[in-house]
Each structure stands twice: as structure tokens, then as C-alpha cells.
């Protein structure tokens, strides 16, 4: 190689110490580096016309270089050295320029990401996978099924185009055996105080419900999340004011029933197509009044209030236990009804508090709906409340956005990740008029439920969480005993979940 010849020449010709000392030490390093590396990749870096495998290598020696390689004077050698240095410099400039224009590809705990150099275009590929083991510890009627199941299998595609426009698409391949679209929206966010969301998303109501699936304290959400819509399609204006002290969101959507994902009131109910002209308005305000103070103990106190209003025939509700067993069903329609027909109003005040390893949230939800049976209309008012506490045993901070373990699970190093204890208590009251007005089936619909639960969350790292919960729920009504109505047996269930999120 030419570069090696230079080094040989230097040795062979016996350059004087005076001349040799003129060379800076880093020159020697550069020569060494160039000799070893550039000979190999120089032609690759500069020529797009690489020879096919096995072909004779293309010479990288120009006439000027060739002439110089036969020269013996120190001046010529120094000139050659400068050329090599400059080539390296130009090569590095070229690489730097190319790097500025090339997309940046990253893979890490935040998922896989492709980003343009100016950060205006970003594509993130993420995933949420929840594999559950669901075991009922008591099943006197013998109609509950212990099982392993994939609760959620969601690829998450997120991205940004032209800086202010971002999107998220989240289908679920484990939604009761069918593929269902959960999130599919575009955010237009030129300012933090006013952003627009268009598409399918969670309407802004319900403290626990709005928390991401991956961060909720228990494997399954509590009673309060049953009385709010799961997803809906429409537009939402949202933003933060006062450096985040006040957050607001106001949505205008098709309108869906409690705990439902889709708007369709007729089959197929998996469709996002709305069957009615009427729409639903939902709004939420959250105040964190001490957010910007220096007192850590009060910085994360949040007070929220959500409400929704619709006047339409929204889809019937879906009320489930932590074991995902249905606890509410309408009477089979006779000649006319029962069917939702009229005002639908939800109210939801909530409180949250986080301080270092401790967190507590509480909320109350009321969902009222006018039903029609024949020509008779009745307003049905269902209510739920719950309190959830969480405490990180290993000392990490907890928050609405989960726990970040200080050290990942690595038994070889003696690190075990983070452990969090969680507890909750909640109640669900379904309006007695459900039964007096012949709306709900008293053989399968409960009137009241009380639920308590304890759980241990193990955060092996920021992507993997292992959840083990015990939930016990007691019921008033919801079962039949011959010709009379009886209380549904208590549900006692252990749910374990391996969750991968990256």
C-alpha cells in the first residue's frame, strides 16, 4: 500500500532527527491510521464504482501521488503526508456532511426510531404485549374458567411529520380474538397551549382510564373505568397553560356507551361507523396548583374534573369484573326496548397525589342515561368510586407515568429492579330503576359491587413488568336461585401478568 511505502521510505532513507522532530507526533498517528485503514476503505468511501468480488482492485494512486512515492526528499515526503492528512480531513468532513443529511436510526428502551437530521420527521415503532394467567380461587357455580391468555398485543406506530404534526396508530390483535383499532389519531401541535387531535382516541374523562395501559397500578382497571368511554372517534382540542399548572381537553366525538371502544349501535359493533347524527361532547380540566413551587411534597397534587354530554341512542354499556366477567345485561328486547334513548351525562371529579415513592388517586364517576321501555322513559344513574394507593418498596419515585427502576434486574450483579405495592378499594352502584323499570336483567345484572385488591408490581427494567394481583369482589344481586333473585357469588381472582413495553 502507498501509505505503508511512505512509512518504509521514512525508515529506509534515514530521515534525520532534525527533520523527524519537525513532524508532530499526531502526524505519525495519522499516518499509521491512514496506512492501516484508508488503504482498505478509501476507495469504498470515494468511489461508487466498486469492483465486483474477485476483480482486480482499482488503484487509488493518482499520478501526483505516484510521482511522490518515488521521491526521496524530506520535502516530498512531507508534502505526501500533508496530502494524506488533508484526505483524511476531507473524508471526515464528507462523512460529517453525510451524517447531517442521513436519517438517525436508534434502537433502545424507547423502541426503534428513525429520525431525520432536522428532527422534523420521526418514526417510532413500539409494542405492548401483556400475557396473563387468570385463576379464580373460588368458583362455587363452576362456570368460571381459569386460563392463560394474551390480554393485549398492540404494535404501536408513532411518528412526527413536519415538526408539528404527529400521529399514533395502535391496533390490538388480542381483543377477544379479533383485531380492533384502538388508537388512530393525528395531533397538530404548533403550541403547547393549543393542540388539535383528530381521529380515534380516549375521550378526556376518567383519571384511571386515561392512564396508559402500561402504567395502571393493577392488571385490570377498577369500577370507575367502567362508566367512561374506552375510545371514540372525533376531534379534540387540548393543551397546557401556566407552565402546566392547568391542563384542559375538550372533545367532540361520535359518542359511545360506557366502557366501549366503538360507536356503532348495530352489528357489527366492532365498526367505528356511527349510526346516529347526534354527537357527544367531553371535557376535562386538571389543575396542579403547586406544580411549579419548590415544595416537593405538594408539587404533584392534581385536581381534575371531567364531564360529558350527549343526547342520542348510544351503545349499551359493558360492565365487567376484574376477571372480565359480565355483570350487567339488558333485558332481551320485547316489542320495544329497553334501549338508550335520550340524554347521556357523565360527571367525574378526581384527585391524585404523588410524592417520591408514594402515590394515591381517588375518583368518583356518575354516568346517567335515559332509557326507553315501550313508551316509558327513565333516567338511569349509575355510580362508581375508588381509591388506589401505590408505594415503591425499592425507593424509586412513582408517578402517573409509572416507575422507572434505578437498576435493572441482573442477579449476577445483585440488582433486582423495582418493586411496588399497590392496593385499591372501590364500589359500583347500579341504579335500582334498572330493575324496577325492566331495563336490566336481574338474573345477570348486579345492583352493587364492592371490590378490594392488593398487588405487587415488579419492574425488571423500564420495558418489562411482572404484575401479581389478588382481587376480591362482592355483589348484591346478579344471580337467580330458582324463581327468586340471589346475590352473585364473590369473585376471588389472582391475575399474573408479564408485560413487555418498548
Amino acid at each position, binding site marked *: 500500500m502507498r501509505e505503508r511505502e511512505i512509512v518504509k521510505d521514512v525508515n529506509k532513507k534515514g530521515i534525520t532527527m532534525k527533520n523527524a522532530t519537525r513532524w508532530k507526533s499526531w502526524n505519525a498517528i495519522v499516518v499509521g491510521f491512514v496506512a492501516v485503514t484508508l488503504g482498505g476503505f478509501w476507495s469504498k468511501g470515494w468511489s461508487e464504482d466498486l469492483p465486483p468480488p474477485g476483480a482486480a482492485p482499482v488503484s487509488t494512486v493518482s499520478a501526483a501521488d505516484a510521482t511522490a512515492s518515488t521521491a526521496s526528499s524530506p520535502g516530498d515526503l512531507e508534502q505526501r503526508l500533508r496530502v494524506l492528512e*488533508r484526505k483524511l480531513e476531507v473524508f471526515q468532513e464528507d462523512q460529517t456532511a453525510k451524517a447531517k443529511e442521513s436519517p438517525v436510526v436508534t434502537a433502545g428502551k424507547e423502541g426503534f426510531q428513525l429520525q431525520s437530521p432536522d428532527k422534523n420527521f420521526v418514526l417510532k415503532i413500539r409494542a405492548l404485549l401483556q400475557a396473563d394467567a387468570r385463576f379464580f380461587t373460588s368458583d362455587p357455580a363452576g362456570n368460571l374458567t381459569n386460563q392463560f391468555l394474551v390480554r393485549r398485543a398492540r404494535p404501536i406506530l408513532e411518528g412526527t411529520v413536519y415538526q408539528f404534526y404527529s400521529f399514533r396508530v395502535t391496533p390490538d390483535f388480542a381483543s377477544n380474538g379479533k383485531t380492533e383499532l384502538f388508537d388512530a389519531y393525528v395531533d397538530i401541535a404548533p403550541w403547547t397551549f393549543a393542540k388539535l387531535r383528530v381521529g380515534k382516541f380516549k375521550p378526556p374523562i376518567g383519571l384511571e382510564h386515561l392512564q396508559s395501559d402500561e402504567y395502571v397500578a393493577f392488571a385490570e382497571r377498577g369500577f370507575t373505568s367502567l362508566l367512561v368511554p374506552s375510545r371514540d372517534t372525533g376531534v379534540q382540542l387540548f393543551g397546557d397553560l401556566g407552565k402546566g399548572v392547568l391542563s384542559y381537553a375538550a372533545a367532540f366525538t361520535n359518542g359511545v356507551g360506557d366502557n366501549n371502544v366503538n360507536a356503532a349501535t348495530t352489528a357489527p359493533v366492532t365498526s367505528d361507523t356511527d349510526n346516529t347524527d347526534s354527537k357527544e361532547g367531553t371535557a376535562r380540566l386538571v389543575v396542579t396548583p403547586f406544580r411549579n413551587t419548590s415544595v416537593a411534597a405538594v408539587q404533584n397534587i392534581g385536581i381534575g374534573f371531567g364531564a360529558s354530554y350527549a343526547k342520542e341512542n348510544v351503545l349499551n354499556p359493558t360492565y365487567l369484573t376484574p376477571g372480565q366477567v359480565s355483570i350487567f345485561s339488558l333485558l332481551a328486547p320485547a316489542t320495544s326496548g329497553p334501549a338508550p334513548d335520550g340524554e347521556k351525562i357523565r360527571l367525574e371529579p378526581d384527585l391524585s397525589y404523588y410524592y417520591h415513592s408514594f402515590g394515591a388517586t381517588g375518583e368518583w364517576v356518575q354516568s346517567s342515561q335515559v332509557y326507553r321501555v315501550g313508551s316509558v322513559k327513565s333516567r338511569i344513574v349509575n355510580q362508581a368510586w375508588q381509591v388506589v394507593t401505590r408505594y415503591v418498596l425499592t425507593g424509586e419515585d412513582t408517578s402517573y407515568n409509572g416507575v422507572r427502576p434505578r437498576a435493572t434486574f441482573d442477579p449476577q450483579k445483585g440488582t433486582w429492579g423495582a418493586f411496588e405495592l399497590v392496593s385499591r378499594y372501590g364500589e359500583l352502584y347500579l341504579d335500582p330503576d334498572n330493575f324496577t323499570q325492566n331495563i336490566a336483567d336481574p338474573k345477570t345484572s348486579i345492583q352493587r359491587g364492592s371490590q378490594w385488591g392488593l398487588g405487587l408490581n415488579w419492574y425488571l427494567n423500564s420495558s418489562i413488568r411482572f404484575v401479581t394481583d389478588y382481587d376480591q369482589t362482592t355483589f348484591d344481586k346478579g344471580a337467580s336461585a330458582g324463581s327468586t333473585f340471589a346475590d352473585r357469588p364473590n369473585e376471588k381472582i389472582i391475575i399474573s401478568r408479564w408485560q413487555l413495553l418498548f
Partner: protein
Amino acid sequence: MNRNRQTSILAALSLALTLAISSRGFAKTITLLNVSYDPTRELYQAINKAFAEEWKQKTGDDLVVNQSHGGSGKQARAVIDGLDADIVTLALAYDIDAIAEKGNLLPKDWQQRLPNNSTPYTSTIVFLVRKGNPKSIKNWEDLIRPAVSVIAPNPKTSGGARWVYLAAWGQALKSASGDEAKAKSYVAELYHHVPVLDSGARGATTTFAQRGIGDVLLTWENEAHLAMMSAGGGTTGDGFEIVYPSVSILAEPPVASIDRVTSRHGTQTVAEAYLKFLYGPTGQEIAAKNFYRPRDAQVAAKYAAQFPKLNLFTIDETFGGWSKAQKTHFADNGVFDQIYKP
């Protein structure tokens, strides 16, 4: 104080206040963006200052002209991709053609809107050699003598480099009486003598002047003068000399306003005035002081000693225009790709 007097004072105060507000309201600050190529930094710093003063005098408005510099082709691509240039002053008409054709940001006949094909000044390609011209380089044929090391930028990435390449090709064609094969052979040999192919004209100057590499730099006339002015520095401590070859190319760097941008910014009038200023006596004087050959005969006569007369050929007469030259020589698998293997 009687009532009439109070009324008069109030009226006077109101009038003064109204006038003050009005005068502030009429005067405004206008911003232009001039997207240019690499070696014109110093030229447009001087032009911008002079024009802003003249504009202020004429209209009372403050004018801020922002500058953006880079490789001519890259700058054109940036404008096509959305860089909000009110004005472009690039190295090649081909690059502004691209803005007109691919970006549809100005009419395709943009070159006819101003005198001299929208080129208010010209330049040429000269040789910069080390003090005393130790390799006795006097003309093009000397560049391919054994042991002569030539510094020139890469025509695939630099507008200035394309002028260099075409100057070499054109003179070879002339001396070979139009024999294309001989011209190709000469240019191939010339680039065989180039040890470092920089990506731009300014980079090539750095290689030659700052890094002390090579015996001769092929560059813009104004760039050569700039290097001369800053000579005595550099790592070598050498000074330089300019050698004018017997034949070279008439380099015509064009200027244009970008209609779609100026109409959106409301800067059509000031952008047009800016370009016309380049043709006026002050603009021409500044161009000459920055070693660009002025079009104005009077200014050219004043600076005649600075710009030796050369036998100059044009792109149109020798290569049939920029589009043809680009396609033949610099497109992928064009002549340059055929003759130059690094």
C-alpha cells in the same frame, strides 16, 4: 387658562401624538434572504450594507438582508425543498433553472428579466501558484507536467469546480482544434494530477493555502485574490501569485428573485431593487472591489489594471449551454465519472 386655550393645547398634543404614532407606523423593517454560493460572503456583506443604506434613504424602511452560503447545487436544492429565499445569487444558471423547473418558484425565462442574462458581474478561472512560481506554471499545458500537483474541487459537488473543469476542457478543445478526444485526454490527465478533491471551492483554497498542498490552485479569480490578500498567513508562511492562462472561461454567476417567495413575503419591490442595485454604479463598484469583473463599462475601465484581458470563451458557444454541459459532463456516468477514478 380659558376653555379655548385648553382645547388648543389638547388638539396640539393629539396631533403630535398622532403624527408620532403615524411616523412609527409607516416606517417598517423588511427582511430579505439572499441564498448564495460559497465564495460570495464578502461581496454580499458589502452589497447588503450599501443597499440597506440606499433603501433607507429612499423609503425610510429598515432593511435586513440575511445571507446563506453553501455549495451552489446544495443551495438550489434547499430552495426547492422550502428554504425561503427572496433572492438567489448562485454560481450557475443551471442551478436557478432547477429552481424554476423542479420547484416552479419562478418563471423558466427568469434569465431574460435582467440585463446580461441576469449576470451583473462575471469572473473567470485562474491559477494561484506559490510565491516565485517555483514550478514555472504559465499555462494549461504546464498543469500536466510530471511532478506538478494541482488542487481543484470536485465538479460533482461544487459549482465553482464545474467552471474549472469546463475551462480546462474548453481551452483543450480550442488548442486541439475541436478534437473532443484530445480534450478528454487532457482533462483526464489534469485530474490525475489532483491529489485531493475537495467538495467546494473554499475547501480547495484551504487545501492549497492553509494546508500547503499542491503547486497550483485552479479557482475563481475573486477567490484567488482573496487568498492573495490573506497571504503571508497559513501554515506555510508562503505568499501566492496569480497566473492568468492565455485562455479561460467566462464565468457568469446569475441572480434572480424567487417570485413565489417574494409575493408571499410582500418583498417583490425591494427584491427587484436589490438585484437592479447590483447593476448600478455602487453595486458594480463593490463587485469590482471584491474582484468580480463588472459589467458596467465605466467601472470596468476604472478597475482595468486589476482584471487583465483574457481570451474568454462562454458556456453557450463551447458547450451549448448549461443543461447540455451538465448532462454530458457531470451527470452520473457522464464524462467526469468516466475519466476520474479516485
